[in-house]
């Protein structure tokens, strides 16, 4: 690519990524924060393209922008409006900023100072095929372990989020108790809510 085009692309994408990330810190509303996150993710996908890693760029868009951000939005939707506050914790903000500054200075110094012996060779072509083959040939074990990990995460997330009836009964009872102000209810002897007892006999029609 011509130098001018490359420069334009790199600097605009860098601005987009860092701008998005910093806006996350500033924005008050959590949903705004997620949308700024999506913008910086797209910026990073563009940066991958400038590094001619097109398979990774497309995977990044597919997974981060397509799935993870929507997952976060779902999580935010499931918690009520009162929890959508994206504000910083003022007390711990100060020391945190200090630590981050320290980390930043050290990493930047290392990044700029050391001589990485960078060499600019031709980029890989047809990366999708190469990555696929290497995943199956050299990295077959991590590939399988990754599969197991993903399934475990899937099952775990569902098990955690799912709410079976017994939990619901405990939860509803504790809410009701708080309403009536009798203090907390120990979950052991929770009486199930009386189910409508008059089972209407419908043998007539069917």
């Amino acid at each position, binding site marked *: 690519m011509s130098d001018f085009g490359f420069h334009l692309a790199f600097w605009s994408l860098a601005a987009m990524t860092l701008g998005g990330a910093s806006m996350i810190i500033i924005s008050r509303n959590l949903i705004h924060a997620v949308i700024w996150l999506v913008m910086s993710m797209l910026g990073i996908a563009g940066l991958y393209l400038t590094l001619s890693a097109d398979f990774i760029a497309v995977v990044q868009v597919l997974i981060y922008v397509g799935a993870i951000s929507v997952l976060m939005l779902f999580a935010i939707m*499931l918690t*009520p409006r*009162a*929890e959508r*506050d994206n*504000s910083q914790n003022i007390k711990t903000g100060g020391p945190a900023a200090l630590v981050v500054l320290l980390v930043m200075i050290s990493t930047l110094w290392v990044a700029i100072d050391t001589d990485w012996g960078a060499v600019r060779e031709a980029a890989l072509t047809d990366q999708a095929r190469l990555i696929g083959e290497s995943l199956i040939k050299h990295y077959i074990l991590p590939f399988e372990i990754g599969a197991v990990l993903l399934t475990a995460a899937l099952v775990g997330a569902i098990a955690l989020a799912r*709410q079976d009836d017994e939990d*619901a009964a405990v*939860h*509803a009872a504790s*809410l009701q108790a*708080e*309403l009536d*102000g009798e203090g*907390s209810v120990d979950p052991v002897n929770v009486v199930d809510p009386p189910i409508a007892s008059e089972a*209407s006999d*419908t043998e*007539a*029609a*069917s």
Partner: protein
Amino acid sequence: MTTADDARLGIQEDSHLAMQGTIEALTTGDGSEPVVVNLGPQHPSTHGVFRLKVTLDGEIVQDAEMRIGYLHRSMEKLAEERTYTQNIPFTDRIDYLAAMSNNLAYCLAAEELLGIKVPPRAQAIRVMFAELQRVASHAMANGTFINDCGAWHTPLFYMFRDRERVLDMFEMTCGARLTTNYMRIGGVAFDLPDELLPTLESFLADMPDRIADYEALLMENEILHARARGVGVISPEMAINSSLSGPVLRATGVPWDLRKANPYCGYENYEFDVPVGEQGDCFDRFLVRMAEVKQSLKILRQVIDNLPDGPWLADVPLHARPEPGEAYARVESPRGELGFYLVSDGGPAPYRFHCRPPSLINLTALKEMSIGGTLADAIVTLGSIDIVVGEIDR
């Protein structure tokens, strides 16, 4: 979380958005508050200005509250200042989709009050137009029902094509398509025009294969089955307790039809059948309406074959003054049992004019049918009950 709990749990209170206020009574399982959605008076599928306040937990309907009265024209009060004949145009506008049945019910009540005998030709003509009105109204009902299930108006337009032919016949005889104002106390306003019977003959000739098309197209449609079967179910006992009537009642299996149970206008000498459903869900109502249209065509065939001639209007004084008393006449309108209750105090105008609207009473069962289903099911159930807001609010 009351402050006592915070103290006990040792949580510092610094976030200014802490959970204030008590938890509402109607909390759902996981504490998220239910959404109250207004299927407001201005909504594409409420068949007119009718408001349904639906409380939803996610998509599941927890409570459905009806708000009516947006189309209230206080007809029953106005009717008290008009003579019996002047009230006939009111009845067209009560249920604007079945004006003929309204006229018929009111005239029967007035005739009972005045003690007038209707000549046989007028009775046959009245039966003919009542059944034609049923075909037109059921076409409209089934079309909009499928439209609520989501089909983009295509079945609706097919059924409107048949309805247009019926409305043309109305226009031929009494000059109006919807607000017919055709029946008078003691008979009908005009005799049948000469070209009506040939049109009716060709209509009866075409309809069977039209209905065969609908059955082929709609009956086996898997998506319609999925959307309508098992939705908005009501048991026969509940149907009878909430005094439902018409196709909604017959779909639950209760064979109650006024034309058979308490025949009027000579229905006893026509041979027809009363279709009865089994499950009492939306699809059964749809099927019952389809079968009823076929029965109406059977009646129309018999009416044409032995149409008596003779006078079509008994001689009734213009400002008849009935002696004090009351009368209640009821008719099997396309939506159910439509009744008119008239009280006379000897004056030219009725002392009390009341109409029993089948839509309003069928609508009371909507809450019981839609609780537990999803929002989409509530809309489909509302469509299958086939309400007319003019009749509900009067």
